[in-house]
Structures are given as C-alpha cells and as structure tokens.
C-alpha cells in the first residue's frame, strides 16, 4: 500500500468514528468538539486530493468560524444536559425511518452516477495559486460582487441582532 492509501484509510476510520460520535454524544459541546475532529479529517482528504484551497477554507471557515457560531448557539440556547427533554420512541422511530430513506436515496444516486467523466490523475486547479490566478484574472467582477454580498450579510446581521 502506498502512503496516500494508508493515510486515506486512517483518515476514513477517524472521520467516520468521530461523525458517529457527533450524533451519539449526549453533551452538545462534546458534539461540537467531535465535529471539529471530523472537519480536520475531511481537510486531510482535501489535501490528499490536491485541493489545497478547499483544505485551507475548511480549516479557517468551518473548523474556525462556523464552529464558533455553533458553540455560541449552544450557549445562547443554554442546553443543559439535564434540561434536554427525553424524546419519545415514536420520534426516534420516525427519525430512523427518515434517515434510512435518505441513505437509500443517496446510495441509489451514487450507484447510478457515471464516473467515466471524472478526470483521472492529479489536477492542479485546487492549488491556491491557480485559484487566485483564475479568480483575479477571469472572475474579478464576481469577486467584487461577493464583497457586496458580505456587506449585505453584515448589515443584515446588525439589523437582526440590534433589535432593542
């Protein structure tokens, strides 16, 4: 087995275990911490796939910023371990059925998917330098428009948050 294959299997095992832990953990803060572990392993996959920009974004935005939001939501909602209401069996059963159906749909869709179109071998489009080149040469206008989007998102957050 080559080095990337070994790394892939190690990362796969860690990511699946920690993802199960996210669902199983009773304490929501533990769920968040395990989700961070999952994100880090997914970052490892991105690096194995030569997609470094996605890896950086995943660490900075998902493991950094989005997780901060999750933690804040947990603290805002004040989810104590004792205060969490016990769900009855009907809800649990409905959840299992819905999740199983989603799994069936996903597996069926992926089995039908045509993998012949995929480019074999490594591409360099995921490198940060190439992405920067494309972004600042061919897609300058969408890039500037995205800053307007950030502006509107920020103002929206202020308007919603400062309702006192």
């Amino acid at each position: 087995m080559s080095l990337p294959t070994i790394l892939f299997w190690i990362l796969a095992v860690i990511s699946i275990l920690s993802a199960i832990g996210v669902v199983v953990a009773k304490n929501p803060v533990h769920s968040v911490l395990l989700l961070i572990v999952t994100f880090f392993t997914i970052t490892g996959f991105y690096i194995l796939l030569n997609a470094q920009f996605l890896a950086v974004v995943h660490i900075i935005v998902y493991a950094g910023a989005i997780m901060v939001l999750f933690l804040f939501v947990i603290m805002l909602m004040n989810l104590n371990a004792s205060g969490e209401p016990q769900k009855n069996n009907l809800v649990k059963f409905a959840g299992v059925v819905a999740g199983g159906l989603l799994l069936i749909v996903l597996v069926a869709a992926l089995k039908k998917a045509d993998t012949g179109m995929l480019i074999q071998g490594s591409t360099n489009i995921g490198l940060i330098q190439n992405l920067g080149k494309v972004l600042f040469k061919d897609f300058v206008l969408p890039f500037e428009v995205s800053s307007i989007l950030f502006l509107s998102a920020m103002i929206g957050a202020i308007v919603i948050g400062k309702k006192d």
Partner: protein
Amino acid sequence: MPSPSYPTLWPFLIYGILVLLLAGGMLFISHFLGERHQEKETDEVYEAGIEATGTARLLFPVHFYLIAMFFVIFDLEAVFIISWAIAIRDVGWGGYLAVVIFVAILVAVLIYEWRIGALNFGPQGKKILRAYRHKIKGVNHNEVVDKQNN
C-alpha cells in the same frame, strides 16, 4: 480512493507528527515535573480565594452572536485575500486593484459597524462618564464661584 499521482505529502506528515510530539511531550513532561499537592482550596475554581457562585452555563446575551457573525464574515474575506496573496506575482496590478476595491468595501463595512455602535459591548462607559462629569462639573462650578466671591 486517492488518485495514483498525488502531491508530496512527507513535509505535511512530518509537520503533523512534530505537532503531535510537541503537544504530547508538553503534557507528558509536565505530568512528571509538575508540582502536585492537595490542599483545602485546590479544587476550587479560583484558587486565589474567590468563591464561585452559580454555574457557568448562563444564558449569553445575543450580542455575542453578533460578534461571532462578524468573525465569520471577516474570516471569509481573509480566505479571499489569502488566495490573492499566494498568486500575487501572477495577477499583477489588475489583481491588486481588485483586492484594493475589495478591502475598501470591507473598511466601509467596518466604519459602518463602528459608527452604528455594533461593536460596543456591555454598559455604555462613555455615557456613564459623561453623566459623572456633568455631576462633578456642577459641584466644581459652585466651588469656582465661591472662590471668585472670596
């Protein structure tokens, strides 16, 4: 499965192993060299003697969430600026102009936030100070008048 041709991984692996060794080594060594004692106040939250009241699981003010939102958005902007900084020699002055406009819009957002007071936290210190000064000034004013009369 990863494709057969893959990026050079060994620097990254060495880096990861070094990080694990450093963190593990610090925990391991401090476990043996650290001072351990068990006194009356050792298990208190603040060993200095302040007694903790209540739990830490309070309801947070929603203002913290606003700050977290700002963090997310500025973080995303940092990602874009990173992609520019790595490709800086390839994109030239056109890219520089693009990123300057981008940062200028960000600065406008920051000024807006600042002016509207979205970054202010807790009690309004300036207002309290002004009220206090007003009160003091009232007292001082009388004294000055008294001195002039003398």
